[in-house]
């Protein structure tokens, strides 16, 4: 599990594709905070601009075990891409610049074979039916914590337990539900290795 950058502790770049209101920006922030709490260096930021609910948005995370992160530009060549909304697969170039051997994490109900047929064997593919999990456990289609569970399962960029504190701080009385959502997604994520 995990690509080379993750194994060597080099800079890891994650690009998140969602829609305004789905929590892509929140997810990016939580993962960065978990990494920082682990003593790593990390940076999270949204695609800069006026926020509009429902419009395609991006968020970015960089994580490094070794040194402070000095690059201050949007991520054009990610190691990992996380897609919050299955319909974005066809309106945004979500795989743009995704490195060979990188990881694509998708919220979808489609079977893994379908996704593999569409995206090929260059990338490690991971799918999760995040919308169903979020609707069942949270009662809303906000898949931020679900997608974190899937990301952590497939990449191990941070430890699942490192997310507990940031989630508690962010969600207050809703934290427990979100932690359960994240854990269930972690369990249910399906992975197809590259190559």
């Amino acid at each position, binding site marked *: 599990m995990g690509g080379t950058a993750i194994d060597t502790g080099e800079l890891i770049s994650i690009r998140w594709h969602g829609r305004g209101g789905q929590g892509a920006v929140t997810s990016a922030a939580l993962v*960065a905070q978990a990494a920082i709490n682990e003593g790593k260096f*990390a*940076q999270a930021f949204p695609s*800069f601009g006026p926020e509009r609910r429902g419009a395609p948005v991006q968020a970015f995370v960089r994580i490094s075990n070794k040194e402070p992160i000095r*690059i*201050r*530009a949007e991520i054009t060549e990610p190691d990992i891409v996380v897609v919050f909304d299955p319909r974005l697969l066809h309106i945004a170039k979500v795989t743009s610049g995704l490195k060979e051997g990188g990881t694509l994490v998708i919220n979808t109900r489609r079977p893994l074979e379908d996704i593999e047929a569409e995206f090929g064997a260059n990338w490690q593919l991971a799918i999760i039916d995040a919308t169903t999990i979020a609707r069942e456990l949270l009662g809303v289609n906000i898949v931020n914590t679900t997608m974190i569970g899937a990301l952590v399962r497939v990449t191990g960029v941070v430890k699942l337990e490192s997310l507990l504190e940031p989630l508690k701080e962010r969600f207050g009385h809703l934290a427990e539900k979100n932690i359960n959502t994240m854990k269930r997604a972690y369990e249910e994520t399906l992975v197809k290795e590259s190559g």
Partner: protein
Amino acid sequence: MAKRVGIEVSVAIGEVVTMTNTDVIAAYPITPQTHIVEHPAKLAADGELDAEYIPVESEHSAMSACLGAAAAGARTFTATAGQGLELMHEVLYIASSMQLPVVMAVANRALSAPLSVWGDHSDAMAVRDTGWIQIFTENGQEVVDNILCAFRIAEDRGVLLPVMVNLDGFHLSHVIEPILLPEQSEVDAFLPPNDYPLPLDPAKPVTMGDFGPPFIYTEVKWAQEVNLRKSMETILKCWGEFDRIFKRCYHPVECYRSEDAEVLLLTMGSFSETAMTAIDRMRGEGKNIGLIRLRLWRPFPFDEIRNAVKDAEVLIVLDRALSFGGPGGPVSSEIRSALYNEDRRPKIVSFVGGLGGRDITVSGFQEMINRGIEISKTGSKHEFEIFGVRE
């Protein structure tokens, strides 16, 4: 011990402003400054911040309210960006010429039209001559540290000038990154209480900002100029004291791998960090290239700049603002002017780039440096080039 937290830079500013025991915050929200004032506004509303938060109807009013508060001896903070800073413009002069130690964070933003909420330095450059001390920062830690320093510098009896701390809109304001937040005891040890020498007091009335007829106006302006230049001593002393307590050191001009460099790039603000990586790559290719980062914009560090670039053959300057119909960007223009009478000086190549939030990547900086070297050899019929522009 300072606490290392993953926090949005804007929120971290609010945290540290809270620790300074600020008395008055008057602000009007504008992207990308909004989170900077949202956080203390909430703390004040929740009773967790013992400060007067004045939600004004415009930036002109925000700065006006800050003047009154500072004149009454209150520790005063505000923040703005872009058009908001421009709406404050005329009031900014009053703060500096009346020696009112207001501290302001500016989340640097491009100016309209077309409407842009994204970052560049046009807003800061437009208020260059308002008499404020102006500091530029490169990352969240530097922002937080220099907000703290700004209060100490502004309120120093030998200075009493407003201080602007510039941070790139979005590129810094909206980034979550690890920041060491100081302990309250450290802040208390570093920042003495504000002791404004002649506060407004009904019991002891004074007149402030009175008429300055021709017989005295020039002398007042000269005194203001002398005072701003002299503030350099206090700024250096403050950064030295900050280093003693917090073990992080700041200088008016900072150098990166520049000692033996034949070619230097000069930047301001957060893009400097991306540029460093470009310098590392080019050094790896055996090229003698270094970086100069201008932190203190006013008072301008003439001696430090001259000293930092004197041995280089080429100095490539990046401006993130445009002086229309003029000599290129304001930074480049000022550096040319500072070096003109020097016996030894590098050739200067000017670029304008990163306008309205456009990224300059690591390879972008490499390309800019290579192009700059080329121009230094062949010359150019243009005063400057806009990096990456589509014509």
